[in-house]
């Protein structure tokens, strides 16, 4: 395995070759600062048809990126939503034009804390402005403009992707014909914030982190970052799912070792997930993105709350939750449905019964994928007809 510094150099080299939009329009952030001339990395799949009525925008989750399907050219691993997006999949790239952008604050080519601060000519680190979900979404609107798409057939996303989508619909009520927010929430709960804080504290407790200045030394607080990722992975599985997958099974051994090595399979799993993550993700990006999620409270942006946020909504919604998701529960999702109903919006809702927890939206979950496909295909027929009239 190459050294981490070497790995990052190599990753940055590869990041030069991906699709990027230079956003020249100044973007005033919620924190008051303004960014301009910044890169927004993105990827597209399938072809935009002549009528430009087959575009689907995907918003990625906390640790996702723009490489939704196929092979991620940076990590050489499968795209994060290969189960749902691709030729012949629920979101069929033979039929639809799929767009996904890396969020600002991220580390896959869009402006983030590891980039060079034009004022100091050094990497930002903690000088990077604190960004919000709204800032992320506004940055991505420039991409639609760039691609010449006036109205999306559909926009979708799970987890933080769903939050971005809710924000997108509230901020740009006429940009999407339909929307599928999946396993998300209109605001972070105390428990959500607490789990994110745990992840952040793990990173900050790593001496290598050095107040975010590790970027100057080309190193990464990998122990802290790995623990942060482990916290996440626990929250993505349900209790029953975890028990069924690992139980008390031991990792390639017949008995306890009477040590602190990874005796249990679940320990080995967490360590593997944690340390695999440090090879592809920047610790400061985790701080910034989790912060954006914690600050997210859509009802706070509108006088009159969530109902007001969705007022005059023409977008047709399908909300999907998973029964065993305890991170963004069925209740969290239903609250969104209630608000959409109260505002008179066109909304459908389905709860998928599964033991796979929050992660369900990324997995091969037939009922979910069939519902997603059925909705998008029926929306395409409607959208085509509406455009013809």
């Amino acid at each position, binding site marked *: 395995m190459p050294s981490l510094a070497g790995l990052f150099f190599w990753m940055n080299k590869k990041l030069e070759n991906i699709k990027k939009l230079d956003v020249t329009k100044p973007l005033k952030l919620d924190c008051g600062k303004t960014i301009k001339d910044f890169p927004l990395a993105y990827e597209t799949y399938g072809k935009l048809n002549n009528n430009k009525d087959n575009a689907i925008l995907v918003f990625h989750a906390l640790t996702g990126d723009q490489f939704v399907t196929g092979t991620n050219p940076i990590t050489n691993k499968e795209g994060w939503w290969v189960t749902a997006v691709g030729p012949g999949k629920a979101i069929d790239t033979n039929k639809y034009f799929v767009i996904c952008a890396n969020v600002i604050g991220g580390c896959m080519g869009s402006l983030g804390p590891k980039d060079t601060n034009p004022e100091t000519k050094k990497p930002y680190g903690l000088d990077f402005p604190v960004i919000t979900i709204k800032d992320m979404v506004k940055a991505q609107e420039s991409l639609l403009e760039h691609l010449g798409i006036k109205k999306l057939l559909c926009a979708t996303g799970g987890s933080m992707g769903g939050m971005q989508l809710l924000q997108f619909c509230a901020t740009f009520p006429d940009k999407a014909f339909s929307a599928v927010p999946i396993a998300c929430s209109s605001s972070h709960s105390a428990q959500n914030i607490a789990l994110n804080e745990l992840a952040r504290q793990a990173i900050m407790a790593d001496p290598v982190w050095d107040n975010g200045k590790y970027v100057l030394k080309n190193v990464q607080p990998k122990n802290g970052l790995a623990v942060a990722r482990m916290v996440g992975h626990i929250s993505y599985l349900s209790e029953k799912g975890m028990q069924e997958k690992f139980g008390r099974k031991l990792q390639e051994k017949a008995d306890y070792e009477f040590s602190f090595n990874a005796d249990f399979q679940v320990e080995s799993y967490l360590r593997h997930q944690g340390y695999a993550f440090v090879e592809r993700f920047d610790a400061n990006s985790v701080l910034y993105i989790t912060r954006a999620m914690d600050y997210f409270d859509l009802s706070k942006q509108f006088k009159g709350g969530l109902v007001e946020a969705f007022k005059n909504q023409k977008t047709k919604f399908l909300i999907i939750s998973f029964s065993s998701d305890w991170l963004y529960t069925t209740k969290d999702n239903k609250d969104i449905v209630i608000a959409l109903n109260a505002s008179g919006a066109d*909304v459908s809702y*389905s*709860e998928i*019964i599964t033991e796979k927890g929050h992660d369900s939206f990324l997995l091969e979950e037939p009922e979910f994928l069939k*519902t997603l496909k059925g909705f998008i*295909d029926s929306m395409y027929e409607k959208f085509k007809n509406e455009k013809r009239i």
Partner: protein
Amino acid sequence: MKNLKMKKEFKVIADLLPNNTRVLDIGCGDGSLMHLLRLEKNIEVRGLELNQDNVKECIYKGLPVIQGNAETELHQFPDKSFDYVVLSQTLQAFYEPEKVLKNLLRIGKSVIISIPNFGYWKVRTKLLFFGEMPVTKTLPNTWYNTPNLHMCTIKDLFNFCDAKNIIIKKVVGVNENKTSLIKKCNLEIKNLFSKVGIFLIS
């Protein structure tokens, strides 16, 4: 045959509804009625349905449906947010039909309810002459597996509305392919010969 009868009831319901209105269909099943209303009357439809497969079916058809239980989840719909709320042959299956009915009248400016009529002569004979709980085409389940907890007759619902000051605008009796208007004067006879009663109330 069952399908045909279903369609007859839906046809009566569709005839009761004016064009271009907003309608909530409680227990919308696979969306057949919603589809009919949207197609023929340009009605803005919404559905509430408990069964996952039915929900999926509605979504495939592009019909807006919310997966949920009408017994516990009607609170999500604001007051008078629909012109009409439709409840087809499920009132008798709720634990608390009175509470559900109150909620329907809160959500809709008007409400359409259909009930399988327990006063239908075949149902009466079954109980009277055979001493058994009736099993008919409209009531296909046996006593131990029926979802129907609160069976009533057309006359019962009539009296209930009177007692609760609910305005009855129209009542239609359905027997196979025949429909007839039910009024106070012909209530006794229609209660005997209608398989299904459809009430428009507010």
